[in-house]
């Protein structure tokens, strides 16, 4: 991966001037390259990784992973149903999978019932959906490459040769 992308992927909040210093290029060049990456659709957005388990006001958010078996359409294959599923705000990720099912989806809801209703009322009845299997996330240990465990303590001494 491009080194600018690597840096942004780890920390999207670095300023252009900081990025420039670290990459040995000018601030101006950083701005231009980011703009190009955005225009080319390579950078699609900037998210914040939130440890919902620790945040008081979203501690009861429930995440579920849903396996969807669908019958592909003659013309558009899996794309049409995947796009339809993507429309729902509750849906966070939609992936076409190899293996025993076709679409892998993650969704967020405020409680189990919420998600069950969504699957029963919104996903299952969609045309082409053959079956669903819902897995609830119990605990997250690592999210988007970031370790969510307690504060990491630097065990090295303060000063050493």
């Amino acid at each position: 991966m491009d080194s600018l992308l690597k840096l942004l992927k780890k920390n999207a909040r670095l300023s252009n001037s900081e990025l420039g210093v670290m990459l040995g290029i000018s601030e101006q060049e950083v701005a231009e390259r980011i703009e190009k990456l955005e225009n080319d659709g390579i950078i699609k957005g900037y998210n914040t990784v939130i440890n919902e388990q620790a945040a008081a006001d979203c501690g009861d958010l429930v995440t579920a992973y849903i396996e969807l078996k669908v019958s592909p359409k003659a013309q558009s294959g899996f794309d049409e149903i995947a796009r339809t599923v993507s429309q729902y705000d509750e849906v966070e990720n939609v992936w076409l999978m190899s293996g025993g099912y076709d679409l892998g989806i993650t969704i967020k809801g405020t409680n189990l019932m919420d998600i069950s209703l969504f699957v029963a009322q919104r996903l299952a009845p969609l045309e082409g959906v053959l079956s669903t299997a819902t897995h609830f996330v119990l605990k997250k240990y690592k999210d988007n490459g970031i370790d969510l465990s307690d504060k990491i303590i630097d065990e090295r001494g303060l000063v050493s040769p």
Partner: protein
Amino acid sequence: MIDYSRIINKKTRDMKPSGIRKFFDLAQTMENVIALGVGEPNFQTPWPIRRAAITALERGKTFYTANSGLYNLRQSISEYVKDYAKTEYSPDDEIIVTVGGSEAIDLSIRAIVEPGDEVLIVEPCFVCYKPIVELSGGIPVVVETKAEDDFKLTAKALKEKITEKTKALILPFPNNPTGAIMKKEDLAPIAEVLRDMNIIVLSDEIYSELTYGRKHCSIVEFDSMRERTILINGFSKAFAMTGWRLGFLCAPKELVSQILKIHQYGIMSSPTVSQYAAIEALKNCRSDIDMMVDEYNMRRRFCVHGFNEIGLDCFEPEGAFYVFPCIKSTGLSSQEFCEKLLYTKNVAVVPGDAFGECGEGFIRVSYAYSLEHLKKAIRKIGEFVREIKENG
């Protein structure tokens, strides 16, 4: 009552505790210190290496190995050194697996230095060479490097210090604390000076993987230097394996067979589990080094820029994970600077003179820390420098 003063060897008694130790004790008394003082990577050992150690334990690999180390590991080291230093060492009798680079340094010095021998030590440098030379009865002769030479060893400085009694030259590049490296063109004149002399080079290349923008060049690559060099390296810095205590030395068999005797009597063999882990490191984890080097490189640029911006001149180091900013503009000595900085801003850096007198006027800053940590620390050092310059 027993008289310990008559028990302890005079040379041991005369040994001074390192300047770093002193500073460590001071920092230890404070709370919430933002440290920039460590000489070890902030990465954990890559998981496959840790996994290999666990597997070795599960399989009961808990016995001594051959004195010079597992044959497989020596083979891997041989290939590795051939890759980076373009020089072949036989796994049979030209490689010893040691307890860290430190043991390799200790063994080498003890094997060659006799009372009265002069050993050239390129300063500023890692703290252990001088005391070990003195313990062997040798006379450390300092060869100073200077900021205006980017802290490189020059042939001129070297020649000035060579005498009839010179037995060895300790060549520590990439350098801790300055971050200086010796490029091919810098080493060529050094090799030229040494080529016809009866002087052994101890090339401490523990930071060889951590160079930026170019690959490390070893002195053994030069004509007739292999026969007069003990190459020292290890796993601590390259693979973030400091706590595993594993290093190695490579040298012609005439030297290795002698050095091995000290290792055999003093150590037996290096930790077995660590040796299995090291095989995995060399076989399958070389790409992890690239990832770490990329990270260090960005932080390095960030620090050089940061220090220059707050008014501390900082030359651009091309190796290791230290920057070595000059603090002379504050009017303080290195010790004063570091102590005041610690007391007023809770930031710990290491005074440059802990690495030799010519390090006076500089501080060693390690960038083996997260970017956020570095940012915060440099901001605080900036405040400190401004206050000193305004109020004296």
